[in-house]
């Protein structure tokens, strides 16, 4: 996707720090992070609430002034603490979809979309406004409500108007701040696909903020997991799911069982671990450097655990403590080696509470994950 010869992406931030308070010693919401978004990609910022993802987005938009570092959009410095550059939001080549949609209540659908085109510094020539509005209205199937007051629209319709208003500006960079979080679940799931499809068809570079990991995984070309103002890992959804680089990411994405472990052997990509369940072979080594004797975490996802009949490598004994039937799958709470495991299995493995089972933890699904400092390996 990146243009040939371009080292910088469409959006790049370096050593960016943003603090909430006005005093020098106020805690930082964003702590000296670097970010590089490539042209045309859908880049998602994912993290728990309060991790600084919205603050980062607002700093890119120019709505929140950073304290340090720099931001460049489309090769142009829009913020640079050292050079005291701070381009106001109205002169940055962006458009933004707000969590609250921020539709202007005193204007119709048409006027909401046309207003920035007519009055804004990045608008369209007078003669083109109507055509530009009609284009996005058609694109988002809003023609039936073109002249309606935005206050009479449903949440889903308002969301589409907000997106249309942003796209009509033909921004170089589209910023989306939890745009689906105010919708009910069904609609959210349906719109994820539609938004993803629309944005990639237009090809606009998008920075998308969400706290919902499913939404992030489904929509992103690449995503960044944020925690306490830092970016913990950047990668494609598959990379983050399969090879989390930290305990935080491993816990945050997917439903992962994590247990304290010690490395007893290293063999190429695989490591042998001493775990509460005995010796386990883990083929997915996410450690930057694995040495025998190091402590780490042993991880396996709930859906990767299997119930088997025969003993063998990576097979452990366990007791079913509780089974919750939820239709397509059954969730188990299992006890083994003094630890508790969560497993989600296909409904064909229907075992009642109290029974003893053998669990196969396939080596290719077993991860060795670095410990986060201070966590002690426990949630």
């Amino acid at each position, binding site marked *: 996707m990146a243009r040939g010869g371009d080292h910088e992406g469409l959006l790049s931030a370096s050593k960016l720090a943003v603090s909430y308070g*006005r005093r020098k010693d106020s805690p930082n919401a964003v702590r000296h992070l670097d970010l590089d978004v490539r042209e045309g990609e859908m880049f998602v910022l994912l993290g728990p609430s309060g991790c600084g993802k919205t603050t980062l987005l607002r700093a890119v*938009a*120019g*709505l*929140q*002034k950073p304290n340090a570092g720099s931001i460049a959009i489309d090769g142009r410095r829009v913020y640079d603490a050292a050079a005291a550059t*701070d381009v*106001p*939001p*109205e*002169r*940055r080549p*962006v*458009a*933004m979809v*707000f*969590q*609250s949609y*921020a*539709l*202007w*209540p*005193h204007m119709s659908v048409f006027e909401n979309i046309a*207003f*920035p085109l007519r*009055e*804004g*510094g*990045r*608008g369209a020539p007078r003669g083109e406004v109507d055509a530009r509005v009609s284009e996005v209205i058609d694109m988002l199937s809003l023609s039936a409500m073109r002249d309606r007051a935005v206050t009479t629209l449903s949440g889903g319709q308002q969301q589409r108007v907000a997106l249309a*208003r*942003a796209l009509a*500006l033909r921004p170089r960079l589209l*910023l989306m701040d939890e745009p689906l979080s105010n919708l009910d679940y069904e609609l959210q799931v349906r719109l994820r696909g539609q938004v993803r499809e629309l944005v990639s068809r237009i090809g606009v570079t998008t920075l998308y903020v969400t706290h919902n990991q499913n939404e992030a995984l489904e929509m992103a070309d690449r995503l960044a997991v944020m925690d306490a103002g830092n970016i913990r890992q950047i990668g494609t959804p598959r990379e983050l799911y399969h090879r989390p680089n930290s305990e935080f990411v491993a816990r945050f994405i997917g439903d992962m069982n994590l247990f304290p472990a010690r490395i007893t052997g290293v063999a190429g990509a695989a490591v042998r671990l001493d775990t509460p369940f005995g010796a386990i072979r883990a083929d997915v080594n996410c450690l930057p450097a694995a040495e025998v004797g190091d402590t780490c975490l042993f991880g396996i996802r709930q859906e990767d655990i299997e119930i088997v009949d025969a003993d063998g490598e990576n097979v452990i004994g366990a007791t079913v403590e509780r089974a919750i039937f939820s239709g397509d799958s059954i969730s188990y709470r299992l006890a083994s080696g003094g630890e508790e495991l969560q497993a989600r299995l296909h409904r064909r493995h229907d075992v009642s509470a109290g029974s003893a089972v053998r669990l196969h933890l396939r080596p290719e699904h077993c991860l060795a994950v670095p410990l986060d400092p201070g966590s002690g390996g426990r949630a």
Partner: protein
Amino acid sequence: MSTGPAGFVGLLRAVALSAVVCVAAMLTMLVIASFSPKSEFGAWTLANYADLWNLRGLWPALGRTFMVGVGTTVFLLCFALPFTWILSRTSFAWKGLLLTLLTVSLAIPAFVTAMAYVWLFNPNSGIGNRLLEATFGWSSFFNVYSTGWICFIQALMLTPAAVFMMLPSFRNFDSTLEEAAAVSGLGARKTFLRIILPTLAPAVGATAIFFFILAVEIFDVVGVIGMPGNIEVVTTMVYQTTYTVYGPPDYGFAATLGMPLLALCAAGVLIYLWLLRRADRYAMLSGKNRAPILRDLGRWQVPAWLLIGFWALLAVIIPFLTVLWTSLTPYLQPPSREALSQLSLSSYRGVAGLIWSPLLNTLMLVAGTIALSVVWSVSVSWLATRVRAVPDKAIDAIVFLSLAVPGMLAAVAMQFLALTAYQWVPLLGTLWLIVLTMAVRSLAFTTRTLNSSALQIHASLEEAAYVSGVSRTRTFVRVFLPVIRPAILFAVLVTTLISARELTIPLMLYSPNTSVISTTIFDLQATGRYDEAAVFSLLMIAILLVIALLSRRRTVPAE
């Protein structure tokens, strides 16, 4: 939102700063005046304070001022609390009528009502007293010249404002709190005493304090009843110091006299703010409020009707009929066959020639006050709710301080300022001095109204315009102003109503060329031209009625 071209923020700060300068000048001048001999600027002296200390009658007047405040507030709550309760928490079928009555009563200025009661119940020639004497043989049954009547009339006139002030908190009261008490086994009486009352107490307390401040500072009723009746309170003493028969007015001593009143009002404002914060805290406790449970009045239906009827009769019907009757009769007399034969429109014809200048001045006064007040408060509110930097919050706080300065003292300060600055700024004796003073006085209310509206509107509406490339100025004009337009309109209507009715400030500052309707009525009354005063009052009521009815839709949000 801390970014943005400094230019636009700078422009609005300059506008807001001019308001701050006026407020600060007013406060400073008041203090300086109190240390100045007569009306001489800057000749520092403590003589005024020494005079104040030795003034006979100061302590009784202070005590009476306090009593007027307490008495008015107590009477006021006797009407306002039941009315607010009926409107917000019961299924009373005639709420619309009660609301209309409350709104209509806003059209009768307090000094007109006070006048009507003087015409009715002054001990010598009151129409009502003579009627009672003729019918029952009771001579001089009522004496309007008493502290009790002053409190009662003030309470009658302040009732609608108090109801409109308390109504939102009563309506927003989360009825799940009551339901929780009920399902936890508490009876209706206990629920009322232990749950509802404590929860609403801060809001009611804040309203009580607010109207206490108003009651000690308004001049309308004490001016009309207290001065001829020799009932001295602080405001009448200040007024008489500036309107002496012999010698020039002594604004220095007037300011000194006002200092105890200023202290009383400032303390009141502090308590008011403290209570308001408590009320807010309670309001925030519950996220999603359910509509209040409307209770049947049941056997309380009759007392409710009696109270409403009593108030409407005394606050609206009797004053209006008295003014109408007085306007048609050549001198004060009770209705009789003889009086009916003397009815004429001659006083209307007499007034026709006098009317144009006060009417025009009133219109200019209202228009000027609104223009200045809106421009100032819109700027202050935008800065205080959108930029929110330290200077913006300071501007907002200083502007709000003006609430603590009673209208009469504001007038004394501005008059002293105009006298002092006469050579540089010729404001003395002009309508603009009155406009400026009234606009400064209105700021506390208008900025509060706009602030609360602007805070409810998420800043993302404006941010959405910025990120779409729209400039600060265009966003302000095309997004911020239209979105808070209902609040602006409401502030304009209330300011219109208040400034058109205002007596105190124009009375202190007017000159022969700048008399307005209210001062004309006051002077006609003071010189015994009752019939002409009545005609002017009717004119004023007619104008105010239109504004009051226009604002009804906005003062009282639909349920």
